[in-house]
């Protein structure tokens, strides 16, 4: 039985456990129908031309954890931003861990999606936002059908969250291969400010496939600053679909740091519904061995006077593969737009591959749209300059790579996170520079 059939069968069992009159019942059943019809994406689809999930679908996954995974904080401390106070939402094998988490309902809601789905208090929010941004593609709707747990963050009007929120999903591998489907819902009301860090981490060498969906809604003048750290084990794969809808004058930024994992696919879709929105999409990808990272972005401009900025840097070693498929879609109403997209890549090894497809689709005439895409190597003149001043080749290369990624790193607004990522980059490149950027 292949994975699709197994999922369809297990859906029937999953459905039985849910409350009969759950408001999501109809949504789930139509979602599973979409998945049944479309299935997992294949390379024949234009959007998946360069990424195949086939190797992942052969694994015998279990879909839910039977035993409660317990983790000692000291074992996983390194995955947290421990030197700064944060709200924490921690899930182990898809199950909420109250022991490791720190939630709040004090003025803001940082809690579980499961409880938000259950409690009538949250019904209006769920009704207004849940699955409203997610697209009708097979893999996203698969997640919708199985929605059970995840982060629920609701920031009311004019509220600035006092500390960053960390969302971490651990998988223990206690029961062999796992297929996880977390679902996050983030609603920032008018003029609300929030910073969120999301991470998926496998703790064993057993295979993990995570199919996560995040929906973010930014109301008028809201500011959402979102960071994704993807530095997982080589046995872990991730399909991350994030859908963001912005209202007027809101600013949303998404920073994706992809340093590890077997196959990592990021579907990131912005939709600007109001005027004067700003969307920022940044990414640094540094991978080696047989890793595969695919960034698929779409910025959909509907309203006037908006902006979007994309900047993705990639460094590819060994036989790794990088994919960048960025699309800027400008409706004819979206005049006076400033959209910029940049993708720079460096190939370190002969076996590494880059596939880039930066697209523009423009229907409005009074716009400023441009994109640039480069693929090259480290500048040999710059290397020579440094080496002639006594800097070793390894360090010189590392310096150049730092400089290359620095633009994006500079945009990280949480200092502790910045130095953390800085360390990750140093680890990746394999040298210590002896200073922090």
């Amino acid at each position: 039985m292949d994975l699709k059939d197994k999922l369809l069968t297990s859906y029937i069992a999953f459905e039985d456990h849910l409350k009969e009159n759950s408001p999501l019942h109809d949504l789930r059943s139509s979602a599973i129908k979409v998945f049944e019809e479309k299935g997992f994406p294949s390379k024949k689809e234009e959007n998946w031309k360069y990424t195949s999930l086939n190797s992942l679908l052969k694994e015998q996954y279990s879909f839910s954890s039977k035993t409660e995974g317990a983790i000692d904080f000291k074992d996983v401390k390194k995955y947290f931003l421990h030197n700064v106070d944060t709200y924490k939402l921690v899930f182990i094998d898809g199950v909420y861990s109250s022991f490791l988490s720190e939630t709040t309902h004090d003025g803001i809601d940082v809690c579980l999606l499961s409880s938000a789905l259950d409690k009538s208090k949250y019904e209006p929010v769920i009704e207004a936002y849940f699955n409203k941004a997610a697209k009708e593609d097979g893999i996203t709707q698969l997640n919708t059908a199985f929605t059970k747990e995840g982060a629920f963050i609701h920031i009311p009007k004019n509220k600035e969250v006092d500390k960053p929120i960390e969302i971490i999903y651990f998988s223990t591998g206690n029961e062999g291969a796992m297929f996880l489907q977390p679902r996050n819902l983030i609603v920032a009301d008018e003029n609300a400010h929030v910073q969120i860090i999301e991470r998926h981490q496998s703790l064993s060498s057993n295979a993990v496939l995570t199919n996560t969906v995040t929906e973010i809604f930014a109301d008028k003048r809201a500011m959402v600053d979102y960071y994704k750290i993807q530095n997982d084990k080589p046995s872990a794969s991730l399909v991350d679909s994030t859908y963001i809808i912005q209202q007027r004058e809101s600013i949303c930024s998404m920073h994706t740091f992809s340093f590890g994992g077997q196959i990592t696919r990021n579907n990131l879709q912005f939709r600007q519904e109001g005027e004067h929105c700003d969307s920022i999409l940044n990414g640094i990808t540094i991978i080696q061995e047989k890793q595969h990272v695919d960034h698929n972005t779409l910025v959909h401009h509907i309203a006037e006077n908006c902006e979007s900025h994309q900047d993705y840097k990639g460094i590819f070693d060994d036989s790794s593969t990088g994919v960048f498929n960025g699309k800027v879609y400008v409706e004819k109403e979206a005049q006076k737009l400033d959209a910029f997209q940049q993708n720079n890549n460096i190939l370190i090894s002969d076996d590494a591959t880059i596939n880039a497809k930066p697209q523009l689709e423009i229907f409005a005439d009074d716009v400023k749209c441009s994109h640039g895409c480069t693929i090259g190597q480290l500048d040999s003149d710059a290397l020579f300059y440094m080496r002639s001043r006594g800097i070793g080749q390894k360090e010189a290369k590392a310096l150049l790579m730092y400089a290359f990624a620095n633009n994006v790193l500079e945009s990280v607004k949480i200092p502790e996170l910045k130095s953390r990522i800085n360390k990750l980059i140093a680890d990746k490149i394999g040298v210590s520079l002896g200073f922090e950027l």
Partner: protein
Amino acid sequence: MSKYTEDDLKKELETKEYEYGFYTDIESETFPIGLNEDIVRAISKKKEEPQWMTDWRIESFRYWLKMEEPEWANVHYEKPDFQAISYYSAPNGKPKYDSIDDVDPELLETFAKLGISLDEQKKLAGVAMDVVIDSVSVATTFKSTLAEKGIIFCSISEAIREHPELVRKYIGSVVPQRDNFYAALNSAVFSDGSFCYIPKGVRCPMELSTYFRINQANTGQFERTLVIADEGSYVSYLEGCTAPSRDENQLHAAVVELIAMDDAEIKYSTVQNWFPGNKEGKGGVYNFVTKRGICEKNAKISWTQVETGSAVTWKYPSCILKGDNSIGEFYSIAVTNNYQQADTGTKMIHIGKNTRSTIISKGISAGKSQNSYRGLVKINKRAHNARNFSQCDSLLMGNACGAHTFPYIEVNNKTAQIEHEATTSKIGEDQIFYCNQRGIDTEKAIALIVNGFSKEVLNKLPMEFAVEAQKLLEISLEGSVG
């Protein structure tokens, strides 16, 4: 004097007739409509082709039957009914003329209307021409002058008869029969086209040129061009196309194959001005063309195209850079107005070491048209030190049209250097104002700005064509600024 407003200009342009939309009343012999193996055989027989050619066509036809029409392009149109087209139409009488004096005077008049009077061309421009109307090559000028240098320039049917060894060796070597749906169709039913062979070390002294015209109703034009430049030779080849205006859609599915051997250089320029349909988007030519060239060591292929016509264009002139140090170039201006749709671009496949390619694409969309650039730059694992530069600029006029860019970049070698950039802009009011202020009316100002925008490509065209192309740009665009 009342002010000449943009609306007036718009109106004038919309009502502007397609200048080449005349139909020449020449008696012609047309095959019954429809397509089956018998028709393929009949075409082959009509052309007095050897058996291997007939077999090749039949083979292609069988591939074609199994293939499906591609749908990935960013164009929407009613699919042509391949059984409602006549696959062969020849101006009556002898299909081939020895000298220009034998040509039907009415036909000559056609050329005069097209502005390509053969005599004139002969005298003034020194361009050797092969003219293809509907399906048959009607006149080739300057043949004897070329023959002195050993250059073969004739229709492909003649080449099949007289130089079978060359044709047999190279036909389908760059665009195989089953390459794609339209290439397979063309391979089965191509009726004529040009053939050109430049011997070793010869620099072709004049521009070679082909003029295509669809004349009969319900005919499709399927020409096949094969250009072979032997070691160290050079040739510049021009191609122009027109069709009369008709309500129904005419089909044009050509295949062009270029072979540049070691150290050879081929410059291939196209000015495509098929009937684009009227301002409601009715009629017009479907232009589904497969063009590809292969470069051996140190060879160079340069594609230059000015695409102003056709209701639907689907065309990707490509270069396979097989030999070390070979160079591929693609310069394109694609203009769409009213309901035209264009999906055009190039493929640069880098296989040899130190290969270089340049892509400059200028898309101009106006009216309710859609203009897409679609290109592939592929660097193979062994293509060390490959270099590519791509630039795609779009100019939008009015907010009812669209500009799209779909570049694909696939790199498997770390020494590759790829740069791609794309911009979108519009004609600024300040630019128009600046010109107006200096006494240049809006119409002229737009022409000026568009010419400036496309200068990089226009400069690449041979002199005679550049003038025509500039004129075409003006005709297709003026007044469409909103």
